């Protein structure tokens, strides 16, 4: 009887161990594979269907993000069109397949992951950059799933000038664009301010700034101010496209600073924190968790 009980307890323990075994990375069940195929197909159909007044401005896909990305802060596209994103507090980068709604991989900056107030992410060739709100840049290579990659820190020295929340890479001038959310310099507070951090191999980076008067940007929209939360490059025109979570705005300006448009952001967004535009004409907006969960929303572009 005793042996029987011990055997039963052993079997239970083994079963519990198997039940608790975490799912292996990359594994999709048959049902999930079918769902993924259907999602990709739905997205293709939505992109291929002619634009009409009914569908204009409507989201073509929306993916609810896991709790670890509740404070998603920025979006960036790699050269081969993969979407990278980062949370607000930890140096942990996530790759999301935006067409199928699948978490592809995660990797961290250092082990354990470095902590910081990360606000934006961008990709320059094989190198990834994270931007903290105080203007500190974290440079690192893209890692494999579960990998901890080494990183290098660059201080732009702009913490006194403004609080940053957006970053993009402009390949035409080989510069990182650092968008100010809140300008500290009183002389520039009435401007939409973007710093350009020119990357020069073998030489120290150089800084320049682009300031566009706010009243020109706001126009007739009636916003009290403008606080960009992310910036990206339109791959078709090369314009700088920004979103502002507080004003729920979408703005586009030319690299010279001329305003292309400034309009309310389509759809419902709790707190748009990231923006990216793909080469296959999709505008991607990420939202932090506020009243609803954190999400990534896809729209047609332009």
């Amino acid at each position, binding site marked *: 009887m005793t042996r029987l009980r011990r055997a039963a307890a052993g079997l239970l323990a083994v079963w519990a161990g198997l039940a608790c075994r975490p799912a292996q*990375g990359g594994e999709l069940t048959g049902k999930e594979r079918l769902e993924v195929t259907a999602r990709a197909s739905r997205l293709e159909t939505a992109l291929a269907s002619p634009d009409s007044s009914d569908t204009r401005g409507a989201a073509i896909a929306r*993916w*609810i993000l896991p709790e670890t990305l*509740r404070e998603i802060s920025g979006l960036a596209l790699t050269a081969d069109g993969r979407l990278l994103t980062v949370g607000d507090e930890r140096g942990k980068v996530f790759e999301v397949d935006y067409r199928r709604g699948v978490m592809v*991989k995660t990797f961290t900056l250092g082990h354990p992951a470095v902590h910081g107030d990360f606000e934006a992410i961008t990709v320059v060739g094989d190198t990834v950059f994270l931007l903290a709100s105080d203007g500190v840049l974290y440079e690192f290579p893209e890692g494999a799933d579960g990998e901890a990659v080494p990183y290098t820190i660059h201080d732009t020295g702009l913490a006194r000038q403004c609080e940053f929340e957006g970053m993009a890479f402009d390949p035409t001038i080989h510069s990182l664009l650092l968008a100010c959310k809140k300008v500290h310099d009183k002389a520039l507070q009435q401007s939409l301010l973007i710093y350009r951090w020119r990357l020069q191999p073998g030489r120290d980076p150089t800084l320049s700034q682009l300031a566009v008067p706010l009243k020109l940007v706001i126009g007739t929209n009636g916003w009290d101010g403008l606080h960009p939360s992310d910036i990206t490059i339109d791959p078709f025109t090369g314009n700088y496209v920004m979103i502002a979570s507080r004003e729920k705005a979408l703005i586009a300006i030319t690299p010279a600073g001329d305003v292309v448009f400034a309009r309310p952001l389509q759809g419902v967004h709790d707190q748009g924190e990231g923006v990216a535009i793909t080469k296959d004409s999709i505008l991607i907006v990420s939202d932090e968790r506020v009243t609803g969960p954190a999400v990534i929303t896809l729209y047609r572009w332009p």
Partner: protein
Amino acid sequence: MSFFRRLIDFFTLGSDRPFARLLAYYTGLALLVVVVFQFVPVVPRLLLGAHASTVTRAGQLLQDGLTGARSPNPTLDELSHLELAFATTLIMLTTLALMLPVSWVFMSARRTRDFNQSVVQALIFLPVVVAGIVLVVQTSLALAFSLAGIVAGLRFRTTLKDVRDTVYIFLGIGVGLAAGVQSPVVAAVVSVTFNFVVLLAWRYDFGRNVLEPTASSQWTGPLGDLAVAKNGNGDVPDRDLVLALTPEKAQALTERFNRVSAILGSNGKKSRFNAIVSITTNGPNQAQRQVERVLEKATKRWKLDEVITNTGKPSQLFYLVRSRKSSSRDALLTAIRASAGDTIATAEMEISTALAKESGEKREERKEKERA
């Protein structure tokens, strides 16, 4: 409750050891949680809320937000009334399941049995109430201030007898808070750690002042005096000490006294026994068989005088024995230990020194008479 007892008995093979029983309870609870989480997916979603999925893995399918689906791990605000009722019930049951063993430990792991029943019941009720309050308040600052105002209006003035009782109450509040904010993992870890630490401290009498004499050393002297009392009745050497005893201790002393009398004999008759063999063991039944087999061979006569069964500590067996002249004390103890093996913790022969002292004194008296 008897069902739980039978269930725990099944897993612990009927052991009375609190460590084994506690381990069996928590293991059973963990298995139950695994089974429920595995087969009723709604439970982790409701019980853990936003904490349900903090792990992100490669290949994880994200939920489609356009098909009208809600967050996979909604907060309490996002639940329907029925789901909220279910989630609240789950949280309350979790609190109860985690506080039940705490109340057992509270009742068991103490030197005296004079605990307050209302504290035991408070240990069960308080966390449930705290969890309920936290569920209501959640992240609302306004509700938190309202609660502070209401609590300020109530006045609790309860003096707890033992400082450890206060710690138990704090633990209850902590478990209730953790369950209320949908972090049952924290509540479980706190409950498990606390219980085992308390049991360990109780088992090894942690924190006892080393200058404070143990019960054994306290009684060695007085019992030695009793043993050599010439009239055989044995006057109590320290009346105040005996009066300070609890009834249980007085009873134990009486039994001990009787054992000593049995060895010394009474009214000048030759004693039937000349030693006490005391055995401590965790398996009294098995140890008894092994020890008696040895006593049968190695002693002239023996008698099982008393069995003291302890919970959580080794039990004690006391034998009155008449040893053979050919068999020394050490040889007898060695034979017992060799036969019983791991079934006994300690084996000792007592009073032999007192008897030696007594016979020495008799010899001296006889010599003095001869000289006179």
